[in-house]
């Protein structure tokens, strides 16, 4: 075993906390909710020992606000929640987009609507994650399918947040959150850890919303020599209110463009036996495992099946799906929601004529390989 590396048996939720600490997170604010509470508990236990702060806020509205405040004071900050709490976070999540404030929001998805089946898994927030806030905005969202991906994608989530000055949503689900697996925690330095760009020029000339060539503006921390304003209202390059239409158009477009510009880097997918696949499974989170099992079963029967796993769900992997989908005769999208939220996106890309089979579960039960096979055979 290499120095610093550790193999540990742990739960997905715990691996998220490990990933957050690995990435340098030192501020957590949250309000406990099943099935995410282990993230709060583990953070509460470890933060004081790491020199960080754990805050249990009065609700998720406050939790989202507090992680934004802490981030502007220089922290890598995060919160964790599920269904009802994620709904409450939306307005302030929009401020993180508007003010370009790096932070990470973990949504361990559970079965709805409303309080729903509070302890059961779902993948029904895909569209809420994308469109849940007022005002048109782009977000980044990642979906782990295993305990070790809970770790690595949490590190990635922090990296994207810091690099692109955006909130990043890590959307796991109850199954992934509570499953236990052995994972290898990389030694420090093994995985890249990104830090936000800080301003370097003359402090008096600092404009917190003038982007560099990479589409992202440097971000100071409150208390440094770079004094700055951040606003939920439409603002100019200096962060002060600005009602000029040309300015507003520039700001809104910039918020979308900086993500658009880095699509290739942001969209992470994995493929399993897709080169010659006639049947292509498109899966994310917990349904990835069942899809892989189903694909292997089909291969045994001589049917060429493969799996595309979406580790990034937003922005959506349009190009990858277009190229793999073109070859496949049938595309199968298993997901734990009624509407086929991801299937709809796949249809948008492959067109109305494509043979797309939806496999949906919306009763709090997971999708099994048998459920998937039934849809095809």
């Amino acid at each position: 075993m290499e120095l610093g590396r550790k193999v540990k048996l742990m739960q997905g939720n715990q691996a998220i906390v490990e990933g957050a600490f690995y990435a340098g997170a030192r501020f957590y604010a949250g309000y406990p909710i099943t099935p995410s509470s282990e993230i709060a508990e583990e953070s509460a236990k470890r933060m004081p020992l790491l020199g960080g702060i754990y805050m249990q806020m009065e609700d998720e509205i406050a939790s989202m606000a507090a992680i934004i405040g802490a981030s502007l004071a220089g922290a890598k900050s995060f919160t964790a929640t599920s269904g009802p709490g994620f709904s409450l976070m939306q307005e302030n999540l929009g401020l993180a987009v508007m003010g370009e404030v790096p932070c990470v929001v973990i949504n361990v998805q559970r079965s709805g609507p409303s309080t729903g089946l509070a302890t059961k898994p779902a993948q029904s927030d895909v569209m809420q994650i994308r469109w849940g806030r007022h005002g048109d905005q782009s977000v980044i969202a990642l979906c782990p399918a295993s305990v070790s991906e809970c770790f690595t994608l949490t590190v990635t989530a922090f990296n994207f947040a810091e690099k692109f000055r955006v909130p990043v949503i890590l959307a796991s689900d109850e199954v992934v959150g509570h499953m236990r697996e052995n994972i290898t925690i990389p030694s420090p330095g093994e995985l890249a850890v990104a830090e936000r760009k800080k301003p370097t020029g003359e402090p008096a000339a600092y404009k917190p919303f003038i982007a560099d060539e990479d589409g992202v503006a440097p971000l100071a921390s409150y208390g440094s020599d770079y004094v700055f304003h951040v606003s939920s209202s439409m603002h100019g390059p200096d962060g002060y209110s600005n009602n000029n239409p040309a300015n507003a158009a520039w700001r809104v477009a910039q918020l979308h463009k900086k993500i658009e510009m880095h699509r290739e880097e942001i969209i992470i997918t994995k493929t399993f036996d897709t080169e010659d696949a006639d049947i292509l499974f498109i899966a994310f989170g917990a349904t990835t495992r069942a899809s892989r099992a189903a694909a292997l079963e089909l291969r045994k029967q001589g049917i060429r099946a493969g799996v595309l796993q979406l580790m990034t769900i937003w922005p959506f992997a349009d190009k990858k799906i277009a190229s793999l989908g073109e070859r496949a005769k049938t595309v199968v999208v298993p997901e734990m929601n009624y509407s086929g939220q991801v299937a709809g996106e796949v249809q948008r890309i492959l067109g109305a004529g494509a043979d797309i089979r939806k496999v949906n579960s919306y009763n709090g039960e997971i999708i099994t390989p048998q459920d998937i096979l039934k849809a095809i055979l």
Partner: protein
Amino acid sequence: MSHATGLQYLKKGVLPHMWCSGCGVGVMLGALVRSFEELGYERKDTVVVTGIGCTGKTDDYLVTNALHTTHGRALAYATGIKAFNPKLHVVVLMGDGDSVTIGGNHFLHAARRNMDLTAIIINNFNFGMTGGQFSGTTPADAITQTSIYGNAERQLDISALAELAGANYVARGTPYHVWELKTNIKEALSKKGFSVVEIYSPCPTHFGKNNKMKEATAMLQWLKESGLPVEKYNSLEKSARKGFFAVGKLVDREEPDFNTRYEEIRRRAMNLKV
């Protein structure tokens, strides 16, 4: 001695300000920047967090650090800033809608946690920005745009709530008592723990107009006549207090603030760790 002007904290070229003539928000801003100057605050160490409303527009006039937040949530944002960097002076400016109507929950818990923040609240008894609807501090029977027959609900007392919820410092002021106001703001800023300065404030445009105090001076007149120094107010029989309110420092105590307590607990945790 020359008086502080606080001009170095104000953005050049943005005056005249947006507030109506006779509004109390500008007076608060003046008292605030003078307090900054007298306390020797550096712009870079100061963060002004605002909510949404006429009061919430104050950050546009300041050259300190600022965060203009969402309606009612300013205290929760400020909590995150202060908890992570306790060295910063974090000042939160809100209306009565922001602080105790939509944001009541955050107000209660910021006070209970004793966050080392200074909350300055313009209580103009209605939602100014949205055109004068009733808020949690609108007096019963008062006329507003959404209570044209009189307000069916009762009035919340912000200062009493702050005291009960655990604030270390509470004062009430008015734009009429402007020097006392500055003294109270300075005391609040200097106080460790949660401090609240509630400012009974004229909104001639809406609350005044609807309640027979349309002239900019009418509400000031009312504040002058009804606001009594705390000692005088307290010396009155309960029955004689009706129609008056106390102006000045109401609460002053020394309970440890959140960050102090968190560091205590951190030390305990470190000692437990093997």
